[in-house]
């Protein structure tokens, strides 16, 4: 990495190579065959299963677990892929503790849900490891063309489903690699061994999808161009712009967005080249904040504080994620908001003000404290950098109707989904579902 990223005591190479390797290995080693069978045996095969209803992509969880149990992990994987073509990544990154596993009746019964996420990974990994033929075949070509903007989970899911229905798809991706947040935004220890890229390559085996990289909406093409050239357009560009801290001192070297920090980390083959502060403060309370905080610690930071402006209960990151951070030595601070960043030539500390919530409204109490820091990572949200042409916005995200059809002036030609669409939940799995719903809606429209 470039030395300009270094400031104060922000520097690379804090650890031995063995420590880097250990720190960035798989968060959960995959279940082996025996572990998977033992775990699969715990599933009750519930009727109208709560786990399945809690899954944004409605994977038939009892069925795929029964398939694992019956010695058919390949069939299990197909059951998963039918609903969620990125089932491999979702198995790794889904906050299952707030989705399927929270709903598991064994959570009710014993406080120990079936490890659905890990079983899903077992099935999908098994399928991909066996290098079997792609599980889906394209329908006969319809001769219709669809542009998909963004090669993140929403775009990939949409493109795959459209290709399956026989449409010809072109994906336009701004970055140099496909995958979106799977490639750039998720903690490294959740997607080891270049899984995001391997999954995209596997997904593309369906055929009928052309991937064009380095194509940025608003600079390389406009929505209008696509509307003119294609039969339908899907926009799933995510929320590419991070909100920056707007405080005195927030322009000091050592202050940056957590998103950029994570993206750099994900792209670095050699983690020892990554500069990290001696004392790091992460501001925010979502999964990105936790990912940034934990990985700072893993890169060798001495202290990492994660400061969230509201209480623990309001924190968007799940209790599981909070505990993960705490277990890695991250100091969690609640009910405090940043007031100013202090330092002469680089960050030296950050001053926070305690907050109180009155009727849902957050106010400063006037009481402040200071944390030493040579690196401050802001994870306070992202937004749609709106060069969206004529597309209608709903707040800072794209407005949509049922089937993810956009409220656009282009008629029934533009669909939206994923984080860029209003109501996006910042989860890979909901983006996948959005793409799937949009694809079915596009298909129905084109067929109609």
């Amino acid at each position, binding site marked *: 990495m470039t030395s300009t990223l270094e400031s104060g005591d922000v520097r690379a190479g804090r650890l031995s190579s063995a420590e880097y390797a250990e720190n960035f290995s798989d968060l959960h080693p995959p279940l082996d065959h025996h572990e998977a069978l033992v775990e699969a045996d715990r599933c*009750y095969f*519930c009727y109208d299963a709560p786990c399945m209803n809690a899954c944004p992509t409605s994977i038939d969880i009892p069925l795929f677990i029964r398939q694992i149990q019956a010695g058919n992990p390949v069939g299990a994987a197909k059951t998963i892929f039918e609903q969620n073509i990125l089932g491999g990544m979702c198995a790794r990154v889904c906050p299952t503790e707030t989705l399927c596993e929270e709903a598991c*009746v064994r959570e009710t019964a014993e406080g120990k849900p079936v490890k659905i996420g890990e079983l899903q990974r077992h099935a999908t990994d098994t399928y991909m490891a066996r290098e079997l033929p792609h599980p889906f075949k394209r329908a006969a070509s319809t001769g219709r063309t669809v542009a998909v903007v963004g090669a993140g989970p929403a775009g990939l899911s949409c493109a795959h489903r459209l290709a399956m229905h026989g449409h010809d798809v072109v994906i336009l991706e701004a970055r140099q690699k496909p995958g979106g947040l799977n490639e750039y935004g998720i903690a490294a220890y959740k997607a080891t061994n270049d899984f995001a890229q391997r999954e995209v390559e596997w997904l593309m085996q369906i055929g009928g999808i052309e991937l064009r990289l380095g194509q940025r909406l608003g600079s390389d093409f406009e929505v209008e161009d696509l509307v003119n050239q294609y039969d339908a357009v899907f926009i799933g560009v995510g929320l590419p712009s991070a909100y920056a801290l707007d405080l005195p001192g927030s322009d000091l070297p050592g202050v940056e967005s957590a998103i950029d920090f994570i993206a750099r980390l994900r792209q670095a083959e050699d983690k020892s080249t990554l500069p990290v502060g001696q004392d790091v403060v992460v501001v925010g309370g979502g999964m990105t904040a936790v990912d940034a905080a934990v990985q700072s610690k893993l890169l060798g930071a001495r202290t990492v504080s994660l400061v969230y402006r509201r209480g623990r209960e309001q924190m968007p990151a799940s209790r599981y994620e909070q505990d993960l951070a705490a277990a890695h030595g991250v100091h969690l601070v609640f009910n405090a908001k940043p007031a100013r960043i202090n330092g002469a030539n680089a960050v030296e500390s950050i001053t926070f003000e305690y907050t109180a919530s009155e009727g849902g409204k957050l106010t400063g109490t006037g009481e402040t404290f200071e944390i030493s820091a040579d690196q401050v990572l802001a994870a306070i949200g992202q937004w749609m950098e709106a060069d969206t042409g004529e597309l209608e916005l709903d707040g800072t995200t794209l407005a949509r109707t049922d089937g993810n059809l956009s409220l656009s002036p282009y008629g029934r030609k533009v669909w939206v989904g994923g984080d860029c669409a209003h109501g996006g939940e910042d989860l890979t799995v909901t983006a996948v579902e959005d793409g799937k719903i949009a694809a079915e809606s596009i298909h129905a429209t084109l067929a109609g």
Partner: protein
Amino acid sequence: MADLSTNFLGIKSPNPFWLASAPPTDKAYNVERAYEAGWGGVVWKTLGEAGPPVVNVNGPRYGAIWGPDRRLLGLNNIELITDRDLETNLREMTEVKKRWPDRALIASIMVPCEEKSWRDILPRVEDTGADGIELNFGCPHGMSERGMGSAVGQVPEYIQMVTEWCKEFGKLPVIVKLTPNITDIRYPARAANKGGADAVSLINTISSIVSVDLDNFSPNPSIDGRGSHGGYCGPAVKPIALNMVAEIARDPETRGLPISGIGGVSTWRDAAEFIALGCGTVQVCTAAMTYGFKIVQEMIDGLENYMDEKGYETIEDFRGMAVPNVTDWQYLNLNYITKAKIDQDLCIKCGRCHIACEDTSHQAITSMVDGVRHFEVMDDECVGCNLCVNVCPVENCISMVPMATGETDPRTGKTVEADYANWTMHPNNPMAREAAE
């Protein structure tokens, strides 16, 4: 403190838990380990004639079926009787009995169906000090092809004949071990009784193919690509064994004939059930082969605990208590009406009761009430079948509650009668109608 000691045909043992004649009792080493672990008695693995012993296959002898978490539910074997020579076995039995005088030692015997064979072996077995003999008329594989084992047990006349020889030429109590591979267990039991048997023991293993290898299409256990039926045992066979025991216990011809119960006994509870159906001892094999001899500790303690709780001082205090309650279907009380009741505090909302009832039974359990996932029995549809209880993963979450006399059954609209009434009295029964006319 309950006294578990038993006196079965005059054979005393400190508890009713015997190891069945099987691999765990093939030699002194195993038997002494069993006694050390606390087993009350042992039926030594079946002895054959003097001379060259039988040989076993040298490939796999066992196959199994499993429940969740690979818990062994049923075991199948193609092992034969002891493959050690008679002299070795007799010598070891003598030594072991001397060292363990307070434990029961029974000799299981299987020799050809000829008087001479039995006359020869009986005195030799008696010389060991063994407390009794058990005639292996049950083994369904290998030996049966040679006219022994279940080949004898399937012909009541042979059973009676051999039993008579053993009573005539031997001095020891005779236990006849019965095969379940017949149509009606009462016939071989009656034959044993007529032959003068002191007791019967049952069940021996059930003829079975436990699984088929789907790669080489051989039955398992597979011996060089081929398999033959074996004998099935373990928890899966317990219900079959209980029924056969009950049939003998309540048959007018064999009522009172002592029984040693065998078949899937794995815990104290299983043993207590066999005893409640009249058994004086129980014999165990698969549970020991699965977990080792230590399991007897749980069996002894559990049975003691049960007896203490119930106030039974000896096994005899509750032995056979269930026998009078075993009846034929036609005598069951049709005025006994139950409804399933789901304890909502225990319910984990898996919905298995609903789908079992909805798909396969009487559509009597809700899945959704006022838009909320909720499982509740609809009394006006519930026939009281108990399927929901059986499929529920939570113990005691669903129970069958009898309706009180005078209540109206919402399913039929009829008042619950106090009187006992069975099929023989029912107006729909043509024979009952004829009798009334």
